[in-house]
């Protein structure tokens, strides 16, 4: 079976006064259907640029991105809109990604309307079900984002992403700003949703400790390149690249 996502020799370069920076440098990766590929690296390693290039949120300099067999970089109009429905993103900071003036129900419903996926009555029902699915209640639809805690706001962002029935989610540091306990709960939620809906995740994080439980495979980025990519247990047991070894050694491990 072909992978859901295939990257070949992907380059994202930014031009500035200081010259050209290769944020993503010749990256080739596959993400299989239903798996979670974790993309881990320090700040500036290129992981966020890679996640955004996959969604066509930043321009790609060269290389190819294929999603379900079609060339994402060549998509136009209707085909691009269809891709944007199938591939969604959840960002790190729900304070910045949720419009504070909108009610939660409208935030979650917006995508359903944009993609004309349901009648207004059906949309209402779908929003209520989504809120329950992410651990909130249907009555939360009439409240505003500021009335929720950080973890709850991230659940709203997840409900919004799921509203358009995507197959693929880019989770860009989606749990990094959360407390340890809330983080564990949101990771559980993501795992449950993945199993129930057959979702595929590209899970971006700066901390290897976070991905240990959720990732099928881990790709480690350093200076724009993928320096190592291996099944999670193998990478934790026998890290090959010095960067991976340093990231692993840095995890504050409790000596139980």
């Amino acid at each position, binding site marked *: 079976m072909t992978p859901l996502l295939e990257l070949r020799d992907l380059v994202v370069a930014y031009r500035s006064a200081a010259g050209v920076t290769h944020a993503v440098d010749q990256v080739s990766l596959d993400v299989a259907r239903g798996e979670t590929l974790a993309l881990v690296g*320090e700040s500036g390693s290129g992981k966020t640029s890679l996640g955004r290039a996959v969604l066509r949120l930043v321009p790609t300099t060269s290389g190819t991105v294929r999603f379900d067999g079609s060339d994402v970089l060549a998509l136009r109009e209707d085909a691009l809109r269809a891709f944007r429905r199938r591939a969604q993103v959840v960002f790190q900071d729900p304070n910045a990604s949720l419009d504070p003036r909108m009610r939660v129900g409208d935030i979650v419903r917006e995508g359903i309307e944009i993609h004309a996926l349901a009648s207004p009555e059906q949309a209402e029902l779908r929003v209520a079900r989504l809120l329950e699915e992410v651990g909130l209640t249907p009555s939360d639809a009439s409240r505003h984002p500021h009335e929720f805690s950080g973890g709850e706001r991230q659940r709203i962002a997840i409900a919004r992403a799921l509203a358009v029935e995507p197959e693929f989610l880019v989770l860009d540091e989606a749990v990094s700003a959360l407390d340890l306990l809330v983080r*564990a709960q949101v990771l559980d939620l993501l795992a449950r949703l993945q199993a129930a809906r057959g979702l595929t995740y590209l899970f971006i994080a700066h901390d290897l*400790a976070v991905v240990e439980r959720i990732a099928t495979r881990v790709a480690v980025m350093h200076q724009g390149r993928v320096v190592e990519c291996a099944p999670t247990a193998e990478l934790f047991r026998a890290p090959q690249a010095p960067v991976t070894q340093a990231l692993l050694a840095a995890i*504050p491990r409790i000596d139980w």
Partner: protein
Amino acid sequence: MTPLLSVEALRVDVARGAGVRILEDVSFSLSSGEAVGVLGASGSGKTTLALAMLGLLPPTLVARGSVHFEGHEVLSASRGARRAVRGRRCSIVFQEPLTALNPRMRVVDQVAEVALAHGERDGRRARDAAVQMMERVGLANAAAQAARLPHELSGGERQRVLLAMALLLEPALLIADEPTSALDVTVQAQVLQVLRAQQRERGMSLLMVSHDLGVLAVLCSRVLVLHEGRLVEDAPTRQLLETPAHPFTRAIVAAVRRMERPA
């Protein structure tokens, strides 16, 4: 021996919020040379607790009870008396190093300012000491970096500048409020190492506030657990990990165990 820091029946309320209590009857003490962690979720009151130790609460909050540091009452002390202590005997570092620094001032001058505020008159000597401390806390190429503005440094470098500022006058107590949660894990490990070295070499006391039990376990011999404004547990770290007593602590310990040992 009297403890270095002793907190008794500390209560903090929102000045005008009818009945909004942030901290409720918090008591604990910290000995000289001891490293104590404060574990809590966001909203548990842990930052308020850290600020109260230095008399840094905003005027919108009212504190009752007592905080004694080196035998002196902090909460009722005059601003001048608090200032004389802060930065010299007791310092604080925060999570966000960018907002804590003046964007238009060279970092060396900001670190040196601490010495100048506490009686050093020779600007050159203050700057030399600042550069030396920046080196000690592991700022690579400190002499050159010293002349830069905060935005020209990385997050990890900025946090080291703040640490240099906090440690410049070799305080007896350092209060660290999530000092590494905005940093990359490798940088976090280095910063934790600096804190541990300061603690071991100089016998500095540490009150470290975090939601991350892993970080606290690395540094602290004792952990206080703050839950919804109350201190629900105060135990040696080992005991807290092995037999957590309060349901909140048990949930945290279980979450950490599960995250570290995937099924």
